[in-house]
């Protein structure tokens, strides 16, 4: 193998420094806090007390999983349709997907709080048609909706990216060889778009499972996710050790589930 030139080495340096300072070192700090007590002595107590958070973990994973699945169900056909449009239409559709993200996540979520309220816009419309108002705010449904609304662009974009790289000639070839539309989807489009699905799923699932703002605002303080528990340990309880061990376990569980997901996809090169 050819030795890298000095310039090539130097070009990578800024990112290596960045990663070391802001990713690797903080990770070690999290690990350190997770296995120590307030005096800095080694302890397993923090990890042991995580058993109390089993339900919270389960609920967080359940909601994030549901949100990711719904995102996928909406995004997949949309990404396909978008990738088959002309360049101008694609640009406009992409802009519409990105548009909500120009506004801050906090503001978007705060606005939804008012829309979903009991006397909010949706219920006002329903009442005008003589229908019963719905209870939306403060329900798990509202929290999952918030996850979908905020993170769906992260699902659409990677799927669209791989879809748009599928050669039309491949689809034509499949048709020539006698594939119906269902088998074309199953045997050509689906396998080729799998990398996009996996990365989209990851990019929706990870922020959803660790969110605390969405659950606080749309869940009316009645839905406690693991992100809320971590935030409370850091902000209110001043228990960085327990907060760190919760974060650490969350990271490990996410890592493991991503590895499993990738195995199912049958592509070993894709490990996250």
């Amino acid at each position, binding site marked *: 193998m050819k030795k890298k030139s000095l310039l090539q080495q130097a070009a990578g340096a800024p990112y290596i420094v960045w990663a070391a300072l802001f990713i690797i070192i903080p990770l070690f700090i999290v690990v350190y806090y997770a296995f120590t007590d307030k005096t800095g002595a080694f302890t397993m107590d923090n990890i042991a007390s995580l058993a109390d958070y089993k339900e919270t973990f389960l609920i967080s994973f359940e909601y994030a999983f549901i949100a990711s699945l719904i995102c996928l169900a909406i995004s997949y056909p949309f990404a396909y349709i978008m990738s088959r449009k002309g360049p101008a239409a694609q640009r406009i559709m992409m802009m519409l997907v990105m548009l909500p993200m120009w506004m801050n996540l906090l503001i978007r979520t705060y606005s939804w709080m008012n829309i979903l309220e009991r006397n909010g816009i949706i219920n006002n419309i329903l009442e005008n048609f003589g229908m019963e108002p719905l209870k939306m705010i403060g329900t798990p449904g509202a929290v999952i909706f918030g996850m979908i609304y905020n993170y769906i662009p992260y699902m659409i974009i990677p799927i669209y990216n791989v879809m748009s790289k599928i050669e039309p000639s491949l689809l034509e070839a499949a048709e020539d060889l006698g594939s119906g539309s269902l088998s074309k989807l199953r045997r050509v489009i689906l396998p080729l778009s799998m990398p996009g699905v996996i990365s989209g799923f990851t990019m929706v699932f990870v922020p959803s499972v660790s969110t605390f703002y969405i659950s606080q*605002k749309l869940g009316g303080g009645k839905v406690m996710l693991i992100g809320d528990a971590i935030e409370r340990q850091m902000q209110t*309880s001043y228990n960085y050790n327990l907060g760190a061990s919760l974060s650490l376990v969350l990271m490990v569980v996410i890592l493991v589930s991503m590895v499993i997901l990738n195995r199912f996809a049958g592509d070993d090169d894709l490990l996250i």
Partner: protein
Amino acid sequence: MKKRFFSVCLAALLTAVPLVSCGGANSEITNPVGTYTTEYAGTTLNVFNWGEYMSIGAEGSLDVNAAFEALTGIKVNYMNYDSNEAMYSKIKSEAVSYDILIPSDYMIARLISEDMLQPLDFSKIDNFHYIDEQYKNLYFDPDNTYSVPYNVGMVGMIYDTSVVEGTPDSWSLMWDAKYTDNILTFNNPRDTFAIAQFLLGIDINSENKADWDKAAEKLKEQNPVLQARVMDEVFNKMEAGNAAIAAYYAGDYLTMAETNPDLAFVYPKEGTNIFVDSVCVPKNAQNYDAAMLYINFLLEPEVALANAEYICYASPNTAVTENPDYELYQNEILYPAAEDMPFTEYFHDIAPEIRTYYEKLWEEILLADEG
């Protein structure tokens, strides 16, 4: 204890354009009565306060920090927090140093016991005589060496007269199944537990775990009737009639009632929490002398009046409370007459072990709510 930070930011953002055209805020006071010097001009003073807890020039009101700068030449670096605990985490980390803090009573007690505050030099705070005698030498600072009272508040029940029948006078209203899905409570353990404790006649500062268990049981019973646990979201919900009953701070009721005149307020007969937020100087402050000038400045009649009218909490400053031009002069909710004064208790700093215990109970209550 002002938690309206976010919604106000949002409102400010949405109305930023018209606000700008409204023109200059008031950034000078006309006749300071205290003694000031420009000796520390050019230095910086780091002030750490609750969000929305000082008049800083919104809607043409006095910009306290700008006025201080105009008078002394000291630049104020003004920063906000949204809970005593968040403030504590930040200063405990020692990554930052502040010159001025405005924590609540029990937090001041904790800071004093952990040796994190320094005594104030009252010879430089000649406006201190404006502080009402009843707010001097309070339990958390018995010799009044570390703190100067800034605001006083009490918790009460806000209810919508178009929904709630009669004139409620008990915390039990917050458990009334008739108002299922119409009731809001706090989204923090201490304030929420206090409601159950007052109702059950338990000491809010109990060091007995069984007492906290009893209160937790009572709070779990409340889960099915609750619409939400809120902090600053309460404004939106009560003002728009999205909920009918809420426990919150008295001063904030006045703000809500401006938008929704159907709202009424009561101090429940079982008693309620009273709090005092006071100005303190942490041990690692970098600009102690400027901090003394700043504290004196906050006590200026003109400044204290602007703050009291902006924040809408009760003022411990007699120059404000005895001023007939004060918008909330003798307001019966902020300043109840002696015979209407409810039974009140302060929060005390609780032993860390009990604190951990009730925080765990709080998580159990939240979990039970999801079931």
